[in-house]
């Protein structure tokens, strides 16, 4: 080896030195052309990419970096007048499965498992692509956490062509995190929102509820659906390798914030109203009942409770008859509760004098062959006494002095047969018959509340008009800051006189002593009307108490309606009046209305100071 090397060296040395030219033109030419060609190729390629056909690469880049992101808007909250939430939306998740992906990764029987066998190229051993479904503990864990049976799960996954099946909706965060950790093939989650009602059955009838796709289907949720809804926005963004957003490209859909609704409901009063109503309905074995509390000076509804109700958080209880907001949908004949309106009508049209005394003896009278009667012979009475004793003869005599149109007009002024302005879905307007020919007997029955129908809310509104000194405010379920000026539908002095007359009802000898509220003067009227059935009036009753307090300057109008009380005590004075009393007391105390009853003594703060 070494020898050969040396030989070569010696050979080199012996070789005569060849002289090269410093500049060789063909070499220069070659290098120039080579560099030129390379340059042109590169520039050409560059131009091709940049100028002639840039779309392809742009598209490829966009495929890898452009994403569409969602900016989720949840449904707005509903709160009461003090800002306490009655309906809240929280994010929830829907768990869904792609059965095809599951079938690709898991074997349900031995054959499938055997079929997935393949030979590993590296080790040469037999391996299986699919795992055994039933031997995996993860699937039973999933079934358990989703409250499903494993058989149900298998049935869902076995569907031949399905690619998207909900396993469970409205699942909360911890469960989703757990499922994520299971890392099961074909299982994914999707953000949605869950509506939660903290007050449960108390407000269920008025607020209503939403379906699984967050659309209002009942009550306020439906009436104000578009306002509460908002809109989920979508943006086109550029993301980097790590998934961070690096550029906002454009807004595809504007995000609209959902509106929050503030109701006029005072949840404290509402809670009392509901629990008292529930108790009364149960004690009297009644079928249903409603309570409405209205602020007479603004038309705001402070409470509106119904029984039966349901828990909107538990959809398995969902039954349409429980869902109904009976205070606005169900009409009944108001019975004696319209008597104050008849007296107001007689005073308006100057057919009666405020101090007039009417003889109701002998306690019955015949009109057109039909008989109208009182419970007993009540003798001579003034107008206040007629209300206090609820004399049918008394109001009949007043009604007969009026023309039918006049009485009808007064009823219409009090809002009978007309909507209350509350604007909720399903409101019924009742029935105020309008015709020209009235028999005297029909007029008489109209005067004690038969032949017309009204909802609990309408009746409460009629009393609110009396309480506000004849002013008609459109009712509102939403909190209003500036109620505006009400329309004067009844002369102020007449409204106040009638309120004063109604004070007798809770006094000694009145029909509803149980309606009394300690420390306050109340004005009200009972009503016990037989329910009309096919072919006449049956044995079921509707017990109603409508009233105002404090009588000197009314603040609240409350109507209690108990439908079909069973047992011996079905008179409104025993059934509905106690509910009125406790609801009114809570309402007055909670809104800090000073007591107006001169006969009850209160300790004043000043007196305490003096005593010390």
């Amino acid at each position, binding site marked *: 080896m070494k020898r050969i090397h040396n030989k070569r060296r010696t050979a080199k040395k012996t070789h005569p030195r060849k002289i090269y030219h410093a500049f060789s033109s063909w070499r220069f030419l070659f290098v120039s052309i080579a560099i030129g060609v390379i340059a042109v190729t590169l520039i050409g390629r560059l131009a091709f990419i940049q100028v002639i056909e840039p779309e392809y690469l742009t598209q490829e880049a966009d495929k890898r970096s452009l994403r569409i992101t969602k900016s989720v808007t949840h449904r707005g909250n509903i709160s009461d007048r003090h800002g306490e939430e009655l309906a809240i939306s929280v994010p929830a998740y829907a768990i869904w499965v792609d059965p095809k992906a599951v079938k690709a990764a898991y074997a349900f029987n031995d054959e499938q498992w055997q079929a997935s066998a393949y030979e590993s190229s590296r080790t040469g051993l037999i391996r299986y692509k699919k795992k055994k479904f039933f031997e995996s503990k993860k699937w039973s864990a999933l079934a358990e956490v989703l409250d499903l049976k494993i058989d149900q799960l298998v049935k869902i996954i076995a569907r031949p062509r399905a690619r998207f099946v909900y396993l469970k909706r409205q699942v909360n965060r911890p469960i989703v995190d757990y499922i994520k950790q299971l890392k099961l093939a074909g299982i994914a989650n999707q953000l949605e929102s869950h509506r939660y009602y903290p*007050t449960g059955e108390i407000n269920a009838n008025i607020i209503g509820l939403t379906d699984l796709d967050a659309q209002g289907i009942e009550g306020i949720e439906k009436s104000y659906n578009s306002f509460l809804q908002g809109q989920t926005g979508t943006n086109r963004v550029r993301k980097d390798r790590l998934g961070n957003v*690096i550029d906002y490209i454009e807004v595809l859909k504007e995000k609209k914030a959902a509106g929050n609704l503030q109701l006029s409901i005072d949840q404290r009063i509402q809670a009392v109203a509901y629990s008292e109503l529930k108790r009364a309905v149960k004690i009297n074995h009644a079928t249903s009942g409603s309570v409405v509390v209205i602020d007479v000076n603004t038309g705001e509804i402070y409470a509106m409770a119904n029984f039966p109700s349901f828990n909107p958080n538990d959809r398995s209880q969902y039954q349409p008859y429980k869902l109904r907001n009976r205070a606005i949908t169900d009409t009944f004949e108001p019975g004696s509760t319209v008597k104050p309106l008849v007296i107001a009508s007689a005073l308006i049209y100057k057919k009666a004098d405020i101090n007039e005394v009417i003889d109701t003896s002998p306690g019955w009278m015949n009109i057109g062959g039909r008989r109208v009667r009182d419970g007993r012979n009540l003798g001579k009475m003034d107008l206040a006494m007629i209300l206090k004793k609820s004399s049918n003869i008394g109001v009949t005599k007043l009604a007969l002095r009026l023309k039918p149109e006049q009485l009808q007009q007064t009823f219409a002024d009090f809002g009978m047969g007309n909507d209350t302005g509350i604007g909720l879905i399903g409101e019924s307007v009742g029935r105020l018959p309008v015709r020209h020919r009235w028999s005297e007997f029909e007029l008489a029955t109209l005067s004690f509340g038969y032949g017309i129908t009204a909802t609990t809310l309408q009746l409460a509104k009629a009393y609110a008009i009396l309480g506000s000194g004849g002013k008609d405010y459109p009712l509102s379920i939403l909190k209003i800051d500036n109620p505006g000026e009400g329309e004067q539908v009844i002369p102020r002095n007449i409204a106040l006189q009638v309120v004063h007359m109604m004070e007798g009802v809770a006094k000694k000898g009145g029909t509803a002593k149980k309606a009394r509220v300690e420390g306050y003067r109340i004005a009200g009227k009972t009503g016990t009307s037989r329910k009309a059935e096919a072919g006449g009036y049956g044995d079921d009753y509707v017990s109603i108490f409508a009233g105002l307090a404090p009588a000197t300057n009314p603040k609240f109008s409350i109507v209690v309606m108990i439908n079909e009380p069973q047992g011996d005590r079905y008179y409104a004075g025993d059934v509905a009046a106690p509910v009125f009393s406790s609801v009114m007391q809570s309402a007055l105390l909670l809104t800090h209305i000073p007591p107006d009853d001169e006969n009850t003594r209160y300790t004043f*703060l000043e007196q305490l100071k003096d005593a010390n």
Partner: protein
Amino acid sequence: MSALRNNLLLLILADLRRYFMVVVLAMLLLISAFYNIYITHETRKLATEKDHLAQKKDNLMSEWQNLLIEVHTLDEHSRIRHIAKTKLLMSQPTKDNSVLVEIP
């Protein structure tokens, strides 16, 4: 002359001086280009931060809503009434054991 001509450095300097404006413009171009890169980078950082903050806000909102639910489930009026009556043996004051305070 020939010494000057052969000194490459001096030659280059002389040339640069001759095309001074071009050099300045080239420098400006370069600075602007780098600044562009820098600003783009900063913008992207801000966009990322905004996205993170928005996400954080969403999470906080959702937590807040959940806490609201908890609060309102606990402070539901009939529940408090029940606890007050049965556990704490409280009752509504009557007129005899209450003092009327007039708020002016």
